[in-house]
């Protein structure tokens, strides 16, 4: 709303100001200059990574914007040797299973917090959110020794256990979404004799699909980026997730691996960046849609 007003104001400005003041002109060109400098600060490192990924020689001692014999050798090598594909596979299996379990756990309790009355409803969620301000990796010594006791080190099951704890923040996001679903929809179903499970699965879940997707995607990106817990659980290279494997690759022998590493970094980052952008858009539109409906 405020944004709309601002745009209107901006249009008003530009309509009447085919010749705006000299001060404004200087401000505009200064802004442009500074922004372009920052655009370069953002783009140069990214370009370097791209340049290294198409540079077959693996030599970067002298600076170049474009390698002398650009080729896709590094990309081909990633697929022919190296364990990158295996790490991607491990990470996808883990991320998808944890994502599905998280969505399931979140949806069930968000439904209870939004649509039911029970002792603890008022302060329960707030208490949980405050508790979860403490990141769980702070308990790393406890996790590690417990996993070691139950022989779960270096297993996917152990990692899933560590990452599956319900997230109060996700419950809160989804609860808000459920809250905005008109009561009339549910009341009609109650009159028809529908029980809570029916209302949950047939009315609320379908309406909340965008938010469920957001929670799934955010969990997915979280698992892809996690190093600390995966680094704690996994020990053999064939079990590694992307983060653990790629850390080993870059902190090992830099000179040999940088070209291949850049190719892998680009191929990992681009899909994740797109998922992230999608999630952001979903979350913004999802919240607005909820407000309008409410």
């Amino acid at each position, binding site marked *: 709303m405020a944004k709309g007003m601002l745009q209107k104001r901006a249009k008003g400005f530009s309509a009447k100001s085919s010749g705006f003041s000299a001060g404004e002109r200087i401000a505009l060109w200064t802004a442009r200059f500074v*922004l372009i400098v920052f655009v370069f600060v953002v783009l140069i490192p990214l370009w370097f990574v791209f340049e290294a990924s198409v540079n077959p020689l693996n030599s970067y001692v002298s600076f170049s914007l474009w390698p002398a014999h650009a080729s896709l050798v590094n990309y081909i090598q990633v697929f022919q040797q190296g364990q990158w594909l295996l790490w991607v596979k491990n990470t996808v299996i883990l991320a998808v299973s944890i994502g599905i379990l998280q969505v*399931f756990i979140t949806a069930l309790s968000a439904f209870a917090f939004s649509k039911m009355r029970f002792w603890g409803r008022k302060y329960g969620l707030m208490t949980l959110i405050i508790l979860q301000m*403490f990141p769980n990796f702070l308990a790393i010594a406890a996790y590690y020794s417990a996993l070691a006791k139950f022989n779960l080190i270096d297993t996917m099951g152990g990692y899933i256990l560590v990452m599956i704890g319900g997230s109060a923040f996700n419950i809160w996001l989804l609860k808000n979404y459920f809250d905005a679903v008109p009561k009339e929809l549910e009341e009609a179903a109650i009159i028809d004799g529908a029980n809570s499970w029916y209302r949950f699965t047939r009315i609320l879940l379908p309406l909340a699909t965008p938010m469920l997707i957001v929670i799934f995607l955010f969990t997915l990106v979280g698992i892809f*980026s996690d190093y600390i817990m995966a680094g704690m659980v996994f020990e053999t290279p064939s079990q590694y997730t992307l983060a653990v494997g790629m850390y080993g690759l870059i902190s090992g022998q830099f000179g040999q691996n940088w070209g291949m590493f850049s190719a892998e970094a680009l191929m990992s980052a681009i899909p994740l960046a797109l998922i992230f952008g999608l999630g952001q858009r979903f979350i913004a539109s999802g919240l607005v849609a909820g407000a309008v409906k409410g």
Partner: protein
Amino acid sequence: MSANMANLNRIANNKSVKKGSKTQKIAYLYMSPALITIAVLGIAPILYTIFIAFTDYNQMHFLNYHFVGLKNFISLLNPNNPLSAVFIPTFVWTLVYALLTTGFAYFIGLFLAVLLNNPHLREGIIYRTILIIPWAVPGMITMLVWQGLLNDSYGQINALLHTVGIPKIPWQSSPFWARFSVIMVNVWAGFPYMMTVCLGALQAIPSEIYEAAAIDGANWWQKFRWITIREIWSITLPLVIPSFAFNFNNFGGVYLLTGGGPARSDNPFVGQTDILASAAYKMTLDFNRYDLASAISIILFVIVGVISWLNMRYTGAFKEVE
């Protein structure tokens, strides 16, 4: 966006479930998966950490550990104990790192947001899209890539500096430059979030306030100082404090970039750029000192708790959670 959420919540609360209806026992059934996982996988490990912190549970006493009271805390905090060389400098650096990273990211983000908010800047959306990229790239990949770019001998950043006549910078071997690079890279990765938040806040300022100020004869600077900055500050403060707390514990932002190095001469446990979170990680996995790792974690718990409490106390975040 948080303003949106708050509004949504307020609207939602007005129409929450009918008053006076009875407790629905089935609610507990729906909540049980979340409550059980939070209790077993979230709260129990924290309690276990507190327990370990008061014992001598480590590689030497894996099966027969004893209760040792405050010994672990005392050895970390007492300046006469050699282990304080692990804790005290690491704590100071964690604080400096979190403050500078959050501060620079915030002010650069705010500065760029103000520039982007210029109504005459028609191509602003292009700059904005490009400037958001570091936020969209997963932090893990950002840090690992920068580790390669900043390599002392082969890194492309040093090659670039060489072309413009600057000698090689020892990003990875000098304590000062390693710390400098940690802050630099984390600001690079962190400013787009701040920029987005500030831009949202700028656009949420009602234009009537500016019009009223213009009628009162306020000049450009007065409007900026007394309207823009004040309004932005009140909207963004609830996000700056959690961002500080995030950086304070940003294990990946340090460990994936420098591995905590370069090494310190006075102790084998932590390096020059290690923050408390990565110190706890190394204590656990590299040295099997679960007792000391847990004691460091407990101290971190307390610090994060105080920061969060301050945040809620002064900004009223989560007031509306019901």
